[in-house]
């Protein structure tokens, strides 16, 4: 008998996306540009994070019409975002047959304590994290893919780097502990001890780990890859730049050839203006998106 929605099937799609670029798109035309540029998947959104940040208000799941239009335009996987804890948005997205749901801090959270119980769904989920404990809590809730958070909609890579170092450094640190120290460490991480033990033994998360938030250039993407990401999400960085198609292609190439400085130099030239961006350090604490998630 065929089995649907097993963890191997859920995580398996993320395995196929590795080494690739997942691009935020708000229209069918943008989705087409992303697919042509070599994106491995698109994230269907109402507004890109830079606009959510600029316009304010409550950010919610995209209109199902928009998601369907994008699904009909491209053949690569289509992902969509649900608000943190908003399991009904997730039910709707599952009925639309999106390929992955991003339970995302970029949208306005619907619950200040609980995330979605992701085990209840056939569709897989990707969730953000700023540190190892947060990643492991999302896995305990059934996430099949993790992305380290940056500060979305800024075009500033600094927070993505901070969180990647926190997560990957945290994993290396676990590996240095004695077995009998892992119980207390699980308490510190506020994460299930079984997951903590697994990570300590294997030296990685049990799922594919991308990075997101603030990637605006091919060099940013390659930096994330060299720091240990399995692939990258690019949000505002492509369609808020002056030449989205050229930049999208360059970021895809940089993600494949992330250790080849000659390729990186070539694809970095003549891209036009990057998104102008915001310094993440200059944001007021209440304007930060990355702190959402519990």
């Amino acid at each position, binding site marked *: *008998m*065929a*089995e*649907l*929605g*097993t963890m*191997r*099937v859920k995580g*398996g*799609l993320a*395995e*196929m*996306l*590795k*080494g*690739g670029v997942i691009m935020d798109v708000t229209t069918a035309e943008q989705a087409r540009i992303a*697919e*042509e*540029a*070599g*994106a*491995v*998947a698109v994230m269907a959104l109402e507004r890109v994070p830079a606009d959510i940040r600029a316009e304010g208000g409550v950010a919610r799941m995209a209109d199902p019409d928009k998601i369907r239009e994008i*699904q009909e335009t491209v*053949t*690569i*996987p289509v992902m969509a975002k649900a608000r943190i804890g908003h399991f009904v948005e997730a039910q709707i997205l*599952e009925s639309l*047959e*999106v*390929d*992955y749901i991003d339970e995302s801090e970029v949208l306005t959270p619907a619950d200040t304590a609980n995330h979605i119980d992701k085990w209840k769904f*056939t*569709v*897989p989920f990707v969730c953000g994290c700023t540190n190892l404990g947060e990643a492991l809590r999302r896995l305990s809730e059934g996430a099949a893919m993790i992305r380290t958070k940056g500060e979305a909609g800024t075009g500033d890579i600094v927070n993505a780097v901070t969180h990647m170092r926190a997560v990957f450094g945290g994993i290396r640190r676990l590996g240095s502990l004695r077995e009998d120290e892992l119980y207390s460490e699980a308490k510190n991480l506020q994460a299930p001890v079984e997951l903590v033990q697994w990570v300590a033994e294997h030296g990685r998360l049990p799922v594919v780990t991308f990075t997101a938030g603030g990637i605006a250039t091919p060099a940013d993407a390659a930096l994330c890859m060299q720091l240990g990401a399995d692939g990258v999400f690019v949000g505002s960085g492509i369609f808020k730049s002056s030449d989205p198609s050229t930049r999208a292609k360059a970021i*895809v*190439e940089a*993600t*494949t*050839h992330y250790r*080849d400085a000659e390729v990186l130099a070539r694809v970095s030239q003549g891209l036009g203006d990057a998104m102008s961006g915001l310094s993440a350090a200059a944001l007021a604490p209440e304007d930060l998106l990355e702190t959402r998630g519990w």
Partner: protein
Amino acid sequence: MKIGVLAVQGNFREHAAMLRRLGANAVEVRKPEQLQGLDGLVIPGGESTTFMRLMRLYGLDEAVREFTGPVLGTCAGMIVLDRRHLGALDIEVDRNAYGRQVASFEADLALDGDGEPLRGVFIRAPRVREVGPDVEVLAELDGEPVLLREGRFIVASFHPELTDDTRVHERFLELVREEARSACPHRGPVEGASGEPGGSRAPRRGGLHVRA
């Protein structure tokens, strides 16, 4: 035995890990010159549109067409090798033909000449629509071919690299050894080709049966 794994995108690391478990020297291939000196090539799963774009950009599509050794393609790798793409096998494949991710599944497959089922993991999997006369079917699911061989090419619409079952990769390495022997009759055994990592080896599960 040196096996390249196409690494422009996708789950090339799992293939490389499985090949290493079986005693092969697995190397990543991102540029045409990296195909030099390889005894075989694996084209992994991933996004076939992304593969084709990145391969064309560096002339890897032509280089793979000219590659003369055995090739294993899984999922996107199968699509890339079909008639409509690189034309390596006489098959025609429909992408994502089982549906979107919510329809992705795993199931036991019946292997030709092998009583033990093989667990197939199908992720937004392609479906083989047409099969030429010289193509052998090595495994089926509900009467449709999912593992096929034509000459030096083996293709699967599922992901043997996502399980611990090494039988598909073993069969591929066997093909690599056969090709190496026939190409170079006076040469001794290919280096590292014994298929016996660390000298000890689990009892062989009745390998894939291939009609010669």
